[in-house]
């Protein structure tokens, strides 16, 4: 899938927005110029019409059109202006010679009111006209006795070609479009340059990233000063992520080193026992004794590898979980029963405080692993002749199980209790494979709890008091 490019998007969208702004602004400006030019044209039209209007006069009791002779001669030369005057009473009209057989369109308003409108001349040219309702001018009443101006309303229409005006507007429009295109192009180039220059640091940073070797994962990526703040922030987060990855890689590496270490010792035992057996001829019983010792060591190895396999399988355990409804108290009592005799040997006593309803939906086998480990650890490491306290409680949506005991190590508890969950951590760093203490029990529990959607934590209850708390969702689904 082709990923969208921020640079391309930025360029496209900014260009689009500038084009839009230029188009709207240009149209508004053009219309304003157009209105202004037409308005000016109408003004001139009105002035000319007003001047000619007085040439519609009453002479000898008739309407006389003085304008016609002079206009016809002028129009013949220019052909630009045309006049037509209608006598509303007789319905007859007088018009410029240039009109020929054609008539102008007639529009008018109240007396003296100027009505402007567009017209088309007989030759097809566009023009602008003003229509005025008027009365003939009576200059000498004596010569026009009996002539009542109100009886001869005239509609005076003056029309002018607007071809020049249109030419100007077309030129203006072209200039606007050219200017708009130029602005858009220049803006796009400027934006592209800005983006390109700004992205140089990003490109160099990304080239640095690509050139990194697999072995350099843990090292933070150097963030150049010129890197934009937005990317620098992201780079910072990336470096934090690298640090986290490195931390987990180190943990994994430690885990494998520890595995190798734990395997080597029983292996060294097997090798030494066999080598020593073969150093000289021996009695059959002696050989058998040594073979048994080698077998014991290999069984330790088998146990260790089994646990490691289980540990590995947990990664896929979520898919194969069998969730049932079970009572934690019942499960706990079963586990306690299993360890009761061992606890008695060390003078340990269980003290339980169980809540009334401890039902939850979870995988019984996985939960049993956790509870088994915690109880076994307590029985193994609690100070002799002390009490191991167990408590279950129910809060909203969660079931909690606590197990608390006096820690037997005289050096006390480590400052960071999370080390208990590190694979191969042991309380006295001793190797005691014979007692099943391989050192991955709590690490295993942590993995199991992740699969079950709960969590396990360790806390200090006193200077030597150690408490493990297991929290599980009642319905078997993780709670945020």
């Amino acid at each position, binding site marked *: 899938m082709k990923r969208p490019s921020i640079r391309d998007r930025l360029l496209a969208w900014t260009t689009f927005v500038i084009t839009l702004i230029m188009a709207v602004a240009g149209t508004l400006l053009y219309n304003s110029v157009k209105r202004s030019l037409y308005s000016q044209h109408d003004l001139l039209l009105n002035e000319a019409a007003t001047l000619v209007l007085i040439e519609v006069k009453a002479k000898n009791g008739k309407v006389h059109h003085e304008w016609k002779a002079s206009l016809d001669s002028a129009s013949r030369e220019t052909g630009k202006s045309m006049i037509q005057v209608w006598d509303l009473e007789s319905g007859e009209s007088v018009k410029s010679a240039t009109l020929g057989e054609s008539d102008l369109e007639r529009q008018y308003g109240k007396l003296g009111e100027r009505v402007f409108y567009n017209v088309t001349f007989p030759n097809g040219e566009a023009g602008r006209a003003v229509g005025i309702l008027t009365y003939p001018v009576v200059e000498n009443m004596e010569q026009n006795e009996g002539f009542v101006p109100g009886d001869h309303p005239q509609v005076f229409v003056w029309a002018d070609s607007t071809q020049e005006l249109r030419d100007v507007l077309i030129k203006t429009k072209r200039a606007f479009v050219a200017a708009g295109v130029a602005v858009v192009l220049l803006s796009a180039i400027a934006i592209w340059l800005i983006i390109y220059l700004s992205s140089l640091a990003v490109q160099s940073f990304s080239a640095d990233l690509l050139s990194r070797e697999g072995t350099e994962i843990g090292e933070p990526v150097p963030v150049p000063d010129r890197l934009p703040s937005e990317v620098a922030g992201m780079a910072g987060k990336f470096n934090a992520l690298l640090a986290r990855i490195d931390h987990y890689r180190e943990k994994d590496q430690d885990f494998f*080193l520890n595995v*190798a*270490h*734990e395997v*080597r*010792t*029983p*292996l*060294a*035992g*097997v*090798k*030494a*026992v066999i*080598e*020593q057996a073969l*150093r*000289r001829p021996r009695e059959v019983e002696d050989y058998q004794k040594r073979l048994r*010792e*080698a077998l*014991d*060591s290999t069984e330790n190895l088998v146990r260790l590898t089994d646990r490691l396999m289980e540990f590995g399988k947990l990664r896929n355990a979520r898919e194969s979980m069998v969730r049932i409804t079970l009572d934690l108290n019942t499960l706990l009592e079963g586990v306690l029963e299993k360890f009761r005799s061992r606890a008695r040997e060390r003078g340990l006593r269980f003290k339980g405080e169980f809540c009334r309803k401890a039902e939850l939906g979870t995988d019984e086998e996985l939960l049993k692993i956790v509870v088994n480990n915690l109880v076994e650890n307590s029985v193994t490491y609690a100070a002799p002749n002390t009490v191991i306290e167990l408590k279950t409680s129910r809060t909203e949506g969660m079931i909690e199980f606590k197990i608390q005991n006096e820690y037997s190590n005289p050096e006390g508890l480590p400052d960071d209790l999370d080390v208990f969950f590190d694979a191969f951590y042991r309380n*006295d*760093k*001793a*190797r005691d*494979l*014979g007692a099943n203490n391989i050192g991955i029990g709590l690490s295993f529990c942590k993995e199991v709890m992740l699969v079950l959607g709960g969590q396990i934590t360790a806390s200090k209850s006193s200077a030597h008091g150690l408490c493990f708390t297991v929290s599980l969702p009642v319905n078997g689904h993780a709670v945020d």
Partner: protein
Amino acid sequence: MRILVLEDYPPLRSSIVECLVEEGYAVDSTESGDEGLWYVRNHVYDVALLDIMVPEVSGLEILKKLRSDGNSVPVIIISARDTVVQKIEGLEVGADDYLVKPFSLDEMLARVRVQIRRRNEKKSPLISVGDLVIDTATKTVQRAGRAIELTRKEYLLLECLAFRNGEVLSREDIARQVYQDYEGGTSNVVDVYIGYLRKKLHIDGLPNIIHTKRGHGYFLSEP
């Protein structure tokens, strides 16, 4: 020669101890760091084999304490920790050698012998005292060019005197170095073995090479 073995994995510890004993070394062994520290502080050893991950006090801690006490006993670390960093850490704390598990018992024995020679400032496995030549690698003895057959105990006793050429060793010192289960006392077993040795070395009228310092002990020197 007395050796301390500190190793908490029982099958490995017992094999190492048995191998060393069969080679004629007197061996003390323990699985506990505390006990190991006590042994090495209260006894004289020719070599100490220390595991690092042992209960209570780690092998490295014991080594640090020994060196800060001024104890220069040769220490060979036996550990499953095999990274360069871990080896460097062990050697820098004061170990003389580092053996990674699993190892061959023959290699371990060879390294032990090297440490014993180094402790006694012998670069060659051959020790010469006058016309007496002891090959510590093959555990053979010659006097005036003639091979002398010795029992294991006789050889160990002679080697013990030869390493400390000219130095007077008390009966207890000799017994502690030679006998695996020596726990002190006034047994005359050392005197008996010295007698045997003198007889075997006194060939063709050659002069006595093992001398007695009355009230102190025995020493080996040219006639």
